[in-house]
């Protein structure tokens, strides 16, 4: 459930097709997102799920984002 919402937010910001985005997709290499893009994505995800993601620097893949969202939205 969370994965689909996150995938759609990422697709919108990066202009990639949602179908191309999987848990293994690399933010920097596959999505070609720089730090400004990444902060925009995180901002939108935080608003959507009403959470605060602290450790942005260690995010490497879409799977990392989903894991953080799952953990934080359970609280």
């Amino acid at each position: 459930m969370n994965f689909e919402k996150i995938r759609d937010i990422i697709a919108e910001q990066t202009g990639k097709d949602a179908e191309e985005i999987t848990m293994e997709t690399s933010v920097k290499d596959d999505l070609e997102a720089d730090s400004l893009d990444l902060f925009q994505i995180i901002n939108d995800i935080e608003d959507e799920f009403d959470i605060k993601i602290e450790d942005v620097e260690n995010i490497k893949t879409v799977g990392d984002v989903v894991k953080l969202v799952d953990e934080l939205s359970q609280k």
Partner: protein
Amino acid sequence: MYADICQLLNIQYPIIQGAMAWISDSSLVSAVSNGGGLGVLATGHLDGEGCRAEIRRIRELTDKPFAVNIMLLSQFADDIAQVVCEEHVPIVTTGAGSPGKFMPAFKEAGIIVLPVAPSVAIAKRMEKDGADAVIAEGCESGGHVGKITTMCLVPQVVDALHIPVIAAGGIADGRGMAACRMLGASGYQIGTRFLVAKECTVHPNYKARVIKAKDIDTTTTGQSTGHPVRVIRNRLAREFEALEKRAASAEELDALGRGALRRAVKDGDMDYGSVMCGQIAGLVTKEQPAKEILEDLYQDYLRVMSETTK
């Protein structure tokens, strides 16, 4: 939200001298603070103890408020953040990242935090993290740059935030300050103009090159590394451009850049040094004492404001 930055920071003019690695040391910082602005110590080239020594030197030269900038990409960022708290530095600015993880320590030490933001999303995050004001820096600035111009970034950040916004990038006289005031800024950060202050210890070749610079003389290099910088177009910059054209790796680009800023600042190498400089350098035409720069800027700002709002 507009706010009285002078009251927030306890300074005379709403003018902050932008941190410049290897360049804004205790000499420049104390001269700016003594002159009524906010001097900012650059630490991108320092380790913890180097930073501590500079802070103590600043305190020998001025009793006015000053700030320390933390370059968040530096390997010494953690140490510097700790030293800043230990030495009870009153104000901190940060660059090249978000200072979220240091905020609790800064707030506990009673430090006023002014992070630099290159986008609305990052500025919003900094406000959520407890920043006292945000420095919205457009890509006209020298050194590490974002993607958006000051003209476009400042009003969008002003709309998105409740805390005050300080404008940076492309300001070198009263017109630039007044323009940013119109965009909603409460304060103004200026780098290139202070580079040619008498008290700035940068190599004379560097000052001469900035004074000689025209509007079209700068370029940004290293977009593909994710941390581009604005520099004066010289032989080194053209080598960067050639490398990027043939899609060199970030490692190759970083290797070419290593030590280049130091070469420019300390050795005066204007051909193969990295001569970081803002687009507004064309307006910077003479070396002056920092106090005179501040007075000129503020008087010019008042004149422009009164003439254009008649």
